[in-house]
């Protein structure tokens, strides 16, 4: 029989995403979520103690009948099942982390509870793109490409215009598109490759270096600029390096001030739970929302494919009619 805690745990199983603040290690985020979940699970009312019948010896206090011992049957609670003896019902739950974020960066971090960890593997193998906001600043270069690192070089940036920046971005995007074609391992001259490219289904097969699928500048106020990047198989270090290389390409230098992930697969910033909402109740709500969203997505997919079939059916019926007329 499932206790309230187990029933609650089943409702918690699945994927959800949190917003990782900058300057915090992802392990700390995971552990905080885990302890909060355990606290929530173990706060549920525990089952009443089972009773067992035991024969209790009662020695009578009278002097003369000191030896007369009566045995009475009594129903006493089994203390070995007491929560203070057995400990809380859940002492460890598995909380898995999706694509990692390093200490310096912030943003959407996908977490999985219980059997959601299996889905996390599926999510990893379906090469979903992730979206980042990169805050860059022209004028300096540092050893680790972030603004906190030791400064290596300073340069001027007056000559940089938005036009020049966008030309560099377009060049980078083109290079990455080419890389994507080579790593997706399809024959370029085949119909298959054409179909996949039209539907945007090209993805690198197996392991590949980081590939950028989209890159644009959304704010340009020299020396500061903001880039929006969609990419695959990336690390945050690579993105910082990207900013550095853009700076070099523009005959200047640039550092990365912040890396913020705004989307991981279909988990967006709207779904992400901030630090104050990492409680069992809020997480349960987020997981339920994820499940319902998944159901809707499946439903809509079946709706899309259904009309196609019916239209094909109609066409077939029409053709048959024509034939019969002839």
């Amino acid at each position: 029989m499932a206790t309230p805690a187990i029933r609650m745990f089943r409702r918690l199983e699945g994927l959800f995403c949190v917003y990782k603040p900058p300057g915090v290690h992802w392990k700390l985020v995971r552990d905080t979520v885990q302890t909060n979940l355990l606290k929530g699970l173990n706060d549920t009312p525990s089952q009443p103690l089972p009773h067992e019948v035991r024969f209790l010896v009662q020695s009578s206090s009278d002097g003369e009948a000191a030896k007369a011992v009566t045995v009475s049957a009594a129903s006493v609670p089994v203390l070995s099942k007491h929560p203070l003896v057995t400990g809380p019902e859940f002492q460890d739950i598995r909380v898995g982390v999706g694509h990692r974020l390093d200490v310096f960066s912030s943003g959407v971090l996908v977490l999985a509870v219980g059997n959601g960890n299996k889905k996390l593997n599926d999510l990893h193998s379906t090469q979903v793109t992730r979206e980042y906001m990169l805050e860059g600043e022209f004028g300096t270069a540092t050893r680790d490409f972030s603004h906190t690192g030791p400064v290596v070089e300073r340069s001027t940036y007056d000559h940089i215009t938005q036009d020049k920046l966008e030309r560099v971005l377009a060049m980078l995007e083109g290079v990455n598109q080419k890389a994507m074609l080579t790593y997706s391992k399809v024959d370029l001259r085949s119909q298959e490759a054409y179909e996949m490219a039209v539907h945007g289904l090209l993805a690198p097969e197996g392991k590949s270096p980081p590939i950028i699928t989209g890159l644009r500048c959304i704010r340009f106020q020299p020396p500061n600029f903001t880039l929006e990047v969609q990419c695959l198989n990336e690390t945050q270090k690579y993105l910082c390096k990207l900013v550095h290389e853009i700076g070099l390409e523009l005959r200047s230098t640039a550092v990365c001030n912040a890396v913020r992930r705004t989307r991981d697969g279909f988990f967006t910033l709207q779904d992400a739970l901030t630090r104050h909402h990492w409680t069992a109740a809020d997480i349960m709500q987020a997981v339920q929302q994820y499940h319902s969203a998944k159901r809707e997505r499946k439903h809509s997919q079946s709706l899309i494919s259904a009309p196609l079939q019916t239209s094909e059916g109609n066409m077939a019926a029409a053709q048959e009619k024509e034939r019969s007329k002839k």
Partner: protein
Amino acid sequence: MASTCAQLCLRCRIPLCSKAVTRSLQNCTQAQHYNTVSKVPTKIRGGLFVRGSHITLQARRGWKQQMCYYDVTAKYLTTEAQENKFTNELSRRDVASLMATGDAVPLTENQTSLDLDAAGEFSALEEISDEEAVSIFVSSDIPPVSISLRDYVDKSETLSKLVQLGVSLWKLEKRANVGSMLLRLDFNTDVAPRLMFLKGIGVEDSRLGYIISHNPFILTETLENLQTRVNYLKSKKFSSETVASMVSRAPYLLNFSVKRLDNRLGFYQDQLSLSAANTRNVVARLPRLLCGSLEPVKENLKMCEIEFGFKKNEVQHIVKAVPKVLTANKRKLIQIFDFLHNTMKVPHYLITKFPQVLNSKYLRIKERHMFLEYLGKAQYDPALPNYISLDRLVSLPDEIFCTEVALATVEDFCLFQKTL
């Protein structure tokens, strides 16, 4: 034929009885003999059949040693259902006959050991009356070795009383030697007097469980020692209510010798150059100071003076207001002070005025400051208009902070956090 049958029976019985009590070799041979005799009428069928199943058993023995004999046959010989029944019957008879021999043989190991146990009080042959029979205390089957206190709770009076007091045994059993120490205690002679003593000095009933869960060793301390330590604290002009609250908040307090306690009190008075009343106040508010090591405290004090640049009297003031600074994590303190002083540009005298900020969370301060800065309200100078005190910045809960200090909604604050 009879002898081969018996051998086969014997071979098959070894996995069959793997869970049963191991018997001496002599016993086995006797049983074997017994079996051969008992099985003469069914020997041909039984013998044939046993051989067949024995082959399957050999094939599977590698990966299922523990499996019972007739489980194997039931699983792999389902086609011959009728004969299967015979084997089951047979194997059951095997077991039964084994049991019978076990009981019948007078000098088995089991029985000798039983005799030794009982030899102290009663002879097995002596007749006893009903009254005596009732009054014999049958020792409950306490396991001699266990990895958990769970097996002992229902049997041991001490443990069951402790559970009723609210002691979390599952935490205690993880600590080395504590489990066996608790089992050795007797409730009436060891536990009850100490509980009465704790109640006598004014500890509330609800705190007893907490104290013992954290410091089970208070149950092994002698009553005289406990009394002298309480007397010492009282001689230092701690009131009896203070002593009670200190003991209930720092469970290890009464386990330390008077010399050590005196040493600690002297240290705090010297290092902080506080008056006696102030020292008492600081220690009464954070009795943990008397239990822990002094080295981290010294480090924190030096850090406040040298690294942070507080003056001696400022440190004194901070400690008087927030004693927890002394035991706080050094790295976290540095992080908070760095942010307050270098990013928020708060001068030393304001931090001294609101020392509570050093006790709060770094992320909380950071997020709130960034939010106020984004709104253009980050103004921490009391001389200028729209002044926001550090106290209000840190100690207010989120809802009140958003509505009263930042003049925004909680949703806005939440959205802002997602842009950091």
